[in-house]
């Protein structure tokens, strides 16, 4: 039944494009999205329908995950309270329409940044909060340890409407393997189909594989193959045409990453105000006018760090401690051998 409702909402969202009245006049400093958000008192954030570590709701409806933390950071920055977020769970198919139609203001839903998405469909990607790549999961008992052991006739389960579907084709085609793609709309359905033996392999982003594995009947029965077949930089997305809002979301994310770089945590943020390092002082609102350009006060970044924490804290809390991907891999600071490198906040 939920399916029908989901499908209905996505159609309604499309119709809403027709109905939306927007006279996107750019007030000097304030963006329309910012003004609306402050008027409503909450940030409207689109997330996944349940992907542990990224965006997942517990039994009492509390959302956690590194994608969730991006929205919480924005709420802390513009509303002063990281809890003032309204989360809308979206399927891969609905997500962009929900954003372009104005149902949500930030899409933070493990979404891959690609040229066509950025350029074509009225969206703007603001950054990367997780560097991922597509992989394959198989049953351990199958004895497969590498994708080179795949044979003609293999059936692969995946989600529709994702880059996964395209990468999968490129992968199998370039190796000349004939395969049966079985594409479902919801991740849960994909996992159930794979678990039941409908498919021989399950393919999606490796972080997704690791997260979904924890949900399976017997996680130890399955392994993620070592090969990575694509680049999947995942990050938050905003609507095209509101440059100030875009900047707010971008720099909320950057603040979290840079805070880790300078060792500012939720615990020590307040005491960092008296630091000797001007860059640290700028990051906790003790020097410069870092919020004025967005139409925000000077402590917007301090609130992010205090309420949500830096990127490292968020990663540890959501992804490492939950056993999904204890090793940070490329999602480590550039100073520590990873590729997280953000422009300086100054």
């Amino acid at each position, binding site marked *: 039944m939920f399916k029908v409702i989901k499908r209905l909402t996505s159609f309604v969202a499309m119709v809403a494009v027709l109905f939306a009245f927007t006279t996107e006049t750019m007030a000097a400093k304030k963006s329309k999205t910012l003004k609306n958000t402050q008027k409503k008192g909450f940030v409207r954030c689109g997330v996944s329908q349940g992907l542990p570590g990224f965006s997942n709701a517990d039994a009492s409806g509390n959302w956690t995950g590194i994608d969730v933390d991006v929205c919480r950071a924005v709420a802390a920055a513009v509303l002063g309270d990281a809890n003032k977020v309204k989360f809308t769970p979206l399927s891969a198919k609905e997500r962009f329409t929900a954003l372009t139609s104005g149902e949500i203001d930030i899409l933070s839903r493990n979404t891959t940044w690609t040229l066509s998405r950025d350029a074509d469909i009225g969206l703007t990607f603001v950054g990367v909060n997780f560097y991922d790549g597509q992989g394959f999961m198989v049953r351990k008992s199958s004895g497969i340890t590498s994708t080179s052991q795949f044979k003609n006739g293999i059936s692969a389960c995946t989600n529709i409407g994702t880059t996964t579907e395209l990468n999968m084709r490129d992968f199998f085609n370039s190796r000349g393997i004939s395969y049966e793609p079985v*594409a479902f709309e919801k991740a849960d359905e994909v996992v159930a189909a794979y678990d039941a033996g409908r498919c021989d392999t399950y393919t999606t982003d490796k972080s997704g594989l690791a997260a979904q594995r924890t949900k399976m009947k017997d996680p130890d029965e399955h392994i993620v193959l070592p090969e990575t077949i694509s680049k999947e930089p995942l990050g938050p997305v905003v609507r095209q045409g509101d440059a100030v809002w875009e900047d707010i979301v971008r720099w909320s994310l950057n603040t979290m990453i840079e805070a880790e770089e300078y060792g500012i945590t939720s615990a020590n943020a307040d005491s960092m105000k008296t630091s000797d390092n001007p860059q640290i002082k700028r990051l906790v609102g003790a020097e410069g006018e870092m919020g004025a350009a967005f139409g925000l006060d000077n402590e917007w970044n301090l609130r992010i760090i205090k309420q949500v924490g830096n990127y490292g804290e968020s990663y540890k809390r959501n992804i490492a401690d939950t056993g999904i991907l204890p090793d940070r891999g490329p999602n480590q600071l550039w100073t520590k051998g990873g590729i997280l490198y953000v422009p300086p906040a100054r």
Partner: protein
Amino acid sequence: MNNKIKRILPQLLTILFVILIFGFFTINAQVNMDNRGIDFGFGFLKQEASFDMQFTLLDYDGQDSYGWAYVVALLNTLLVSFLGIIFCTILGVIIGIARLSSNFLIKNSAAWYVEFFRNIPLLLQIFFWYYAALRALPLPETAEPWFGVTYMTIKGYFIPAMIWENLNIFVYCLLASFISIIFIRNYAKNLQEKEGKQLPLLYISLAILLVVPGLSFLLGGVTLNFEMPVLKQLSATSYTYDGGIGLPPELIALVLALSLYTSTFVAECVRAGIQGISKGQKEAAASVGLTPNQVLKLVIMPQALRIIIPPTTNQYLNLTKNSSLAAAIAYPDLVLVFAGTAMMQTGKAIEIVGITMLTYLTISLLIAALMNWYNKKIEIKEK
């Protein structure tokens, strides 16, 4: 003069109102899409689709265009609708007649069947068949053969594929036999009207249908071989069948659910049609010496059909539209592939939803037109 204005003015105003509303929505959509940098256009139909489909009737490859993906997905929708309509009609007629049986057991089981399948939402039934019934099927390596050569497994129903040589000659022979049967039927009708003689039409038709295509094997060089599905090992523990044809479980679940559900409505139409003919007709026909078979064929059915066809048309339309629920179980129909994957990959929401809506409208109107034509044909013709 005043009267004329009174007549025309409201209509003009209505038209103006409709144009204004459409204009408003069009311009509004245009402005908003411009603001958000979304282009409107159908150029994407020529772009490379670059995704694969699980099950296709025609050759399709990710290198083909979105336009071709649309055609292939549409055929998948039509296939499900076609199979569903055939099965629901056969089942519906049997159940409908069974409900009128004088046998207590037959009558009541038919009634239970109708009440059961009619009153459970279709989506739930689709889920039941797909997630409960078909997921419980054995894995390929443990499947016992059905009828010796077919295998029903969790990965689908694997049947032998037919490999023809000189298929065209066989098809011509088949066509020729159909045409000759039509001629013979007309001849038999004339013969009966003029001389009152009856030919054993059924036997003659069957004989032609068997002999003529059969001859093509003996004389025309037509051969038919079967390619059997063979178990193939993919890895230490996973298997599939190679060769033959694999019908995906998604297709089977969808056809099952759609035909079982819709057959209950067809059954009710059939029952209503037959009950709508007064008893007197049957008795009068019997009293002029017609056999019970002739009574049904010559007196009851021609009249009942006129009552049955229009509501059954509605059921066919419903079935076709309901086939869009395919998206719920990963059957690559128009909604899943075109209004799903293609829409996501191109971001052309308005264009694609528009095309999809128009497509369903066209299919429905075509089915309705076909059924109206048939209905006209069997209407009472006043002489």
